[in-house]
């Protein structure tokens, strides 16, 4: 995404709820879609509710389109209904006593031209007379999005918009929602727990863990340079913490990993793409410095790729082709050699 685009949402959101403290910087640019990810209880929904002004800030501020919505300690807080921020809930939360058309028109004055432009792309034109209870989960979700977009909000918040859908419904809805959000031109902040949604929809991914932002980067960077163990597991990468020493990193269990970096010193995070881990039945010749004798703990197949989980001096995963598994003749319990080029080892500062 173009960094020169003006910031739409600028916020530092601090909310305290008992022992839990959320303290997050969140920015969304004009027409940008940001995915908000993180483990359960990380504070994702709290963040959205605070941006909406539904929860009071314990510190920080929220600005939208250059206008101050709320600054902690100042009285002139803009109430939720005047913020021009729309919200789409996981279960749609359509008003059950209103039919689809009245739901969609709930927040509009009477700009029906705008409404009719939304019905077609979301494929809900023929549902307008129905009541929410007569709709499928996917239909409800699309109506909910139409209802929010009909108010022409400057920013759209979506809380697990695809969470209630089955696999096929997800794919269709993801595509529709993505298209509509793109053509709408408003900024969007989408909470999702599914990396597929985030990678398909988002320009940027914001990762929230334990109330703090641990990574905020475009999807490609998230995929290739996971900053925390949680993100690494999300994208399927190996992630280790260790002590840097020159070009070597020593892990907690004594394993040393050689890298292409120099002058390492102190705690670092090591990320390794599982496709970079090569497997051999014999000890590799030419003795690459990163090679370990391991046992196969499990093999999982996804399409043509096999995820081989290894235990040995340390636990590491390798992605190889289905054909390679057959060629190597490995199975659970087999002994293998895992090797890795030093250039494939990613190094990042350790998050505090």
């Amino acid at each position, binding site marked *: 995404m173009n960094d020169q685009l003006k910031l739409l949402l600028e916020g530092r959101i601090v909310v305290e709820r008992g022992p839990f403290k959320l303290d997050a910087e969140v920015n969304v640019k004009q027409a940008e879609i940001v995915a908000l990810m993180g483990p359960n209880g990380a504070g994702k929904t709290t963040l959205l*509710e605070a941006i*909406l002004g*539904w929860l009071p800030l314990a510190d920080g501020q929220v600005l939208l389109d250059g206008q101050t919505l709320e600054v902690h300690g100042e009285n002139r807080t803009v109430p939720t209904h005047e913020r021009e921020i729309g919200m789409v*809930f996981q279960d749609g939360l359509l008003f059950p006593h209103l039919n689809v058309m009245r739901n969609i028109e709930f927040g509009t004055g009477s700009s029906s031209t705008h409404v009719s432009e939304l019905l077609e792309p979301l494929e809900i034109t023929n549902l307008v007379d129905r009541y929410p209870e007569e709709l499928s989960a996917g239909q409800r979700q699309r109506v909910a999005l139409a209802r929010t977009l009909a108010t022409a909000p400057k920013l759209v918040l979506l809380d697990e918009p695809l969470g209630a859908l089955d696999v096929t419904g997800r794919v269709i809805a993801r595509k529709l929602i993505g298209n509509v959000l793109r053509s709408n031109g408003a900024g969007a902040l989408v909470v999702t727990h599914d990396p597929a949604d985030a990678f398909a929809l988002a320009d940027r991914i914001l990762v929230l863990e334990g109330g703090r932002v641990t990574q905020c980067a475009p999807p490609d960077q998230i995929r290739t340079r996971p900053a925390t163990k949680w993100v690494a597991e999300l994208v399927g990468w190996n992630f280790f913490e260790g002590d840097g020493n020159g070009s070597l990193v020593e892990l907690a269990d004594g394993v040393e990993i050689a890298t292409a970096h120099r002058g390492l010193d102190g705690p670092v995070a090591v990320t390794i793409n599982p496709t970079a881990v090569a497997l051999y039945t014999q000890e590799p010749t030419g003795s690459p410095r990163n090679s370990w004798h391991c046992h196969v703990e499990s093999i999982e197949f996804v399409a043509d790729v096999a995820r081989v989980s290894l235990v040995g001096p340390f636990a590491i995963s390798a992605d190889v082709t289905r054909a390679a598994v057959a060629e190597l003749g490995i199975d659970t319990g087999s002994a293998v050699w895992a090797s890795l080029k030093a250039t494939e080892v990613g190094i990042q500062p350790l998050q505090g």
Partner: protein
Amino acid sequence: MTPQLPRLLRLAAFVAVAVVAAPLFSLLWRIPWSELPRLLSTEVVVDALFLSLVTSLVAALLALLIGIPIAFQLSRMTGISASTLRAVATLPMVLPPVVGGAALLFAFGRRGLIGETLDNAAGLVLPYTPAGVVIANAFVATPFVVLTVESGLRALDPRYELAAASLGASPLRSTLRVVLPMIRSSIVAGAFLAWARALGEFGATITFAGNVPGRTQTLPLAVFVAMEADRDAALAMSLVLVFISLIVLVCLRDRWWPAK
């Protein structure tokens, strides 16, 4: 299939139902059926029936007007303050009605705290007027509205209000267009219970509003007076009350308290 009840429990239930139903059957048994049209068309009965219907309906509306705001306030409170306010708001439901009537007298009576001011300022006297009947009825009926509406509000997902606000609806618009319609069944149930309670009100009415035929003598008061003067008329009026109450309760079915 629902599991069968233990035999002992079924027997106990049968006995209990018999105990509850016996007085009702005895009442029906004593009613002079052939005389009914004549008994129910006397001036006293027609006046009392008309007065009862009008005052109980107005009282039910007044109970909604008073009870719904209290229920909203209660639904946002927790802990001891909520328990205290709920206890105060529902006290008239368990208080002997005659005590409620006396309390109303001390408040709105001619020498009452508020009544004296009303009398001096506007010449407004509530006791011995149909308005007094409405006040007494609403006083005992309001708790039914408070309880049903509060339980409806507590069962409502608060995110609906967030959804309405995020669509630009002010708190007032959100309350009127989203919350009230969504708890409609609780409000209807509360209104019906309040109406039924108001229709059967006796103690608070006779204490506060007196027993003026044609003005404050509602059906239950007329029954009370007729028990000594004209037993058959009393029975005929009792039948009307039983009939109306039964219809209300049957119509409410399982909507006594709104389903969660």
